[in-house]
């Protein structure tokens, strides 16, 4: 089997990167920030006590899979999707699609992407890559986190597609089946922005959106009560940095990408005020990076007394304030 002629590009985030790459290769001109913004990728959720988590945690983007599904709804693109009961079935279907020269995005556990350095690989089973060919026992992969096309052993891909756990991929694959000739970008951009404002400002749950950032700020001084010891607490505090900066794209990274979305949207919609909002969002991203830096410093130095955690909480309150002002302005710009 040969490799499909596929233009590979690095991207800021794996899911929006895989979707953008598939669409670009199918002939649709769209950028990753537009994919991210139209699909309302920005989000915030804080989970203080949940049965599935042993420690409080938070998310900075929408649910994996929703970038594809929201984009599909808003631009009228149809994606073929499938999950499988057995690895044999899932690998067979992938081979069949590659035989037909169809590049296919698959959900995998990042840990098995052995072309990446070992220190970077952690178990996250919602990583997305595009499979573009097969050569002997190896698949040809377009991974937006890697600068060029790479090979991956069939055994590694099989393991990566069929790991267990929460949000297990079950061999999930997708590819675009239908792309409208002239999608209505203007309408989709406005819808995406409107939904983002709703998610950040209006969802009536105290742990979602701006309310979620405030809950995070309020609750972080309680984190020591969940920790076994100082080592455990330090690990969890440093994980704030990983969640904000490293895993996926991070709180700052997603904000930077949203800033590019607004910049591009301001041109497409001829809305100069979005150009201003774009600059503001860039600064908001920097603010999240400051939090990330602060958390990693206090975690590493084991400076985890109540004063330090309160300080971290104050920084988070600050983020909630600026993000609330920002999303209200964005919402008003849509009227």
């Amino acid at each position, binding site marked *: 089997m040969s490799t499909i002629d596929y233009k590979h590009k690095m991207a800021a*985030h794996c899911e929006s990167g895989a979707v953008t790459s598939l669409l670009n290769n199918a002939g649709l001109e769209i950028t990753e920030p537009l994919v991210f913004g139209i699909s309302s990728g920005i989000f915030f959720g804080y989970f203080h006590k949940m049965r599935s988590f042993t420690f409080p945690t938070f998310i900075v983007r929408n649910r994996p899979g929703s970038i594809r599904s929201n984009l599909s709804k808003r631009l009228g693109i149809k994606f073929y999707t499938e999950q499988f009961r057995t690895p044999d079935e899932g690998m067979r279907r992938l081979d069949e699609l590659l035989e037909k020269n169809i590049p296919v995005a698959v959900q995998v556990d990042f840990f098995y992407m052995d072309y990446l350095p070992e220190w970077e690989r952690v178990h996250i089973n919602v990583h997305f890559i595009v499979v573009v060919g097969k050569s002997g026992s190896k698949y040809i992969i377009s991974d937006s986190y890697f600068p060029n096309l790479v090979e991956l052993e069939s055994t590694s891909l099989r393991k990566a597609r069929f790991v267990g756990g929460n949000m297990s991929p079950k061999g999930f694959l997708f590819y675009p089946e239908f792309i409208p000739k002239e999608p209505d970008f203007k309408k989709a951009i406005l819808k995406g922005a409107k939904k983002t404002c709703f998610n950040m400002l209006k969802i009536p749950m105290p742990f979602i959106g701006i309310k979620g950032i405030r809950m995070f700020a309020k609750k972080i001084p309680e984190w020591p009560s969940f920790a076994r010891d100082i080592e455990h607490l330090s690990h969890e505090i440093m994980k704030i*940095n*990983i969640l904000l900066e490293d895993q996926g794209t991070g709180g700052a990274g997603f904000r930077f990408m949203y*800033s590019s979305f607004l910049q591009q949207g301001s041109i497409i919609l001829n809305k100069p005020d979005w150009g201003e909002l774009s600059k503001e969002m860039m600064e908001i991203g920097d603010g999240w990076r400051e939090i990330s830096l602060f958390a990693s410093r206090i975690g590493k130095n084991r400076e985890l007394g109540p004063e330090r955690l309160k300080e971290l909480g104050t920084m988070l309150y600050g983020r909630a304030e600026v993000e609330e002002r920002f999303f209200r302005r964005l919402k008003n710009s849509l009227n």
Partner: protein
Amino acid sequence: MTQVPSPELKLEIKKMIMETLNITDINPENVDDEKPLFGSDNALTLDSVDAIEIIMAIQRNYGIRIADQSMARYVIRSINSIAEFIMTEREKNKL
């Protein structure tokens, strides 16, 4: 075409990293330009937590924001890759 980074720029980067991460027991001049900064065989025994410190130090010292996290992973691989990135960004800003 991007110019080749000068040894002075590379030394400046090494000093910036040492100062940012408070590393005092290694002479910056002895840090290998090509050796990975992270991972088990790294020149400075850095971990992933140090990555954010370096990314922000680059922004502070050179006014260059690395907004793209997957790009950041490649930029901070080694002294050479950081120096090349700074040169490329400087060239872009000239245009």
